[in-house]
């Protein structure tokens, strides 16, 4: 997982690389929470550009991170989510609280 922190904006971007299932969430949870507590960012972006698979274990994991980030006064956004994963987000209703964003490169192409 690549981690980019911009101190000026207090913005933490975490680039997730793995397929997010039950197995992967255990490790991801620990890694993400480490980074969040280290930087206490105002905004956290999970970059999904390289995530090819996610199931409902990912929803549980994201909701858990959302709660922590919110508790610390920050906000969470999801970047470049693919269609299949977006369907899962839609079904779960998570989009009401966590917004999806696309980066500019994506829009151009």
């Amino acid at each position, binding site marked *: 997982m690549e981690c980019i922190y911009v101190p000026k904006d207090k913005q933490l971007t975490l680039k997730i690389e793995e*397929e997010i*299932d*039950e*197995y992967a*969430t*255990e490790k991801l*949870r620990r890694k993400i929470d480490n980074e969040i507590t280290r930087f206490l960012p105002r905004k956290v972006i999970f970059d999904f550009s390289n995530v090819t*698979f996610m*199931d*409902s*274990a990912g*929803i*549980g*994991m994201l*909701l*858990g991170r959302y709660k922590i980030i919110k508790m610390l006064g920050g906000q969470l956004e999801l970047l470049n989510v693919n*269609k*299949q994963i977006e*369907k*899962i987000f839609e*079904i*779960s209703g998570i989009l009401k609280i966590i917004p999806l964003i696309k980066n500019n490169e994506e829009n151009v192409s």
Partner: protein
Amino acid sequence: MVGIYDNEMKLEFISKSSNEAFARIAVAAFASQLDPTIEELADIKTAVSEAVTNCIIHGYEDTMGIVKIECKLKDNWIEIQISDSGKGIEDIELAKKPLYTTKANLERSGMGFTIIESFMDEMKVESVPDIGTKITMKKYIATEKNEEDNSIINKHNELDKKSNEQSEIKEGI
């Protein structure tokens, strides 16, 4: 064994969550014989992942057991049966409800069955407490190629009609 199906396969593995990726990829590889779209294949992978996770997390909890997968192909559909010999579900209707989970403290979303139901065409859950749980799901693979062919033929027919009409008009002039 010669069945009424076009093809069949069985898989068994121990209930380690590191096997989830193996299970969904194996089933997807088998299903690819039906020539599904990438989206249909992704639906199958997600549904298998949900069902296998249920067996591991809920069926066997902290114990180890065997997860079984049986797949059958026929014409344009695949049937996938995923079962465990774990603790079973007491109230299946309750378990199927969106957001219902017995393990909220472990950050479970309670969306497993809901996702299977919306990604597959049919889902059946059978369970007996202390005996085990069996999920049977079925997905029809759209024969879009045929529909596409037809729509192309129709378009050509329409174009032919139009050009005929136009030439008739021209002749009229």
